[in-house]
């Protein structure tokens, strides 16, 4: 039974991995990686790593893949060329991969580890459960655990800094002009216009300017007071 499950999961894992590399559309590559991750979680379950399997499905297939899908949708999932147009890597890459596979197989077959041929240590109740993982995290591996949380926070802040909007770099200026220049009914305005800091649509004296877009009067002024976001 476990052998059948292993081969089904292993075929799923390898199919997903090959799909990630060979599919042209990045969106389909992401979906192939989701298949790969779910099959990999099944392999983890066969190895009695329940908590790692659950974390794999929740964190990877659930959260990280959604991030990928968002970025692929933002950039545009057009079909990409499968190979680089020219260059030595196009030929050398698969050769290197084959050499790596052969080398890893030699290393595994020639290994002196006797446990590789066996089914592993005898199963004790509670192995790989959240209880045991949590105990190890909060006793033996407390410092790496805290450092990992720090690393996550640094990465989150770094991603925000990297991907935020900077002024004068992208073509959103005319869209903001449209926002500012949208016609407004008379006697509606912002608090800055009420206080007299900024001239708005309701404070103009000529009656024919009341329906005019206020961007003509205030567009240049509030551009300079805008933040970096």
């Amino acid at each position: 039974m476990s052998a059948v499950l292993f081969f089904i999961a292993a075929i799923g894992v390898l199919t997903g991995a090959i799909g990630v590399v060979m599919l042209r559309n990045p969106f389909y590559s992401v979906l192939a990686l989701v298949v790969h991750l779910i099959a990999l979680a099944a392999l983890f379950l066969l190895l009695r790593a329940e908590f790692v399997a659950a974390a794999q499905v929740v964190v990877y297939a659930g959260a990280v893949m959604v991030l990928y899908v968002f970025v692929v949708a933002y950039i545009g999932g057009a079909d990409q060329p499968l190979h680089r147009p020219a260059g030595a890597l196009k030929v050398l890459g698969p050769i290197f991969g084959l050499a790596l596979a052969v080398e890893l197989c030699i290393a595994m077959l020639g290994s002196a580890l006797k446990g590789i041929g066996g089914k592993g240590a005898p199963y004790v109740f509670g192995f790989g459960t959240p209880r045991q993982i949590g105990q190890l995290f909060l006793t033996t591996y407390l410092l790496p655990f805290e450092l990992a949380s720090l690393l996550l926070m640094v990465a989150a802040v770094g991603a925000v800094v990297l991907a935020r909007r900077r002024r004068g770099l992208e073509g959103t200026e005319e869209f903001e002009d449209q926002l500012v220049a949208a016609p407004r009914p008379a006697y509606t305005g912002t608090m800055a216009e009420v206080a007299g800091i900024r001239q708005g649509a309701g404070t103009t004296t000529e009656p024919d300017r009341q329906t005019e877009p206020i961007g003509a009067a205030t567009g240049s002024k509030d551009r300079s007071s805008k933040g970096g976001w």
Partner: protein
Amino acid sequence: MAIGWYLAVSALIFCIGAVGVMIRPNPLVILLCLELMLNAGNLALVAFSRMWGAADGQIFALFVLVVAACEVTVGLGLIVAIYRRQMPVNVDDLSELHG
């Protein structure tokens, strides 16, 4: 199943990921292939953890998960920044630092 089978699957996934990193020009797919390689390492760690009957390998696998999540966050931020600057999203064309 013997532990060696799991290690063989892990080695194959690692090689597929390495080939993908080298032949694909799109940085998004390169990140996906990096994920493949990290997952191969995870599978080997969990298999060795089962072999010794100690859960420390699973702890390492969870740390690899955390590091992979950080790598994805920063990598996707970089790709979005590249796209916003209207530069080509292609590692062959992004060669301004080439000596």
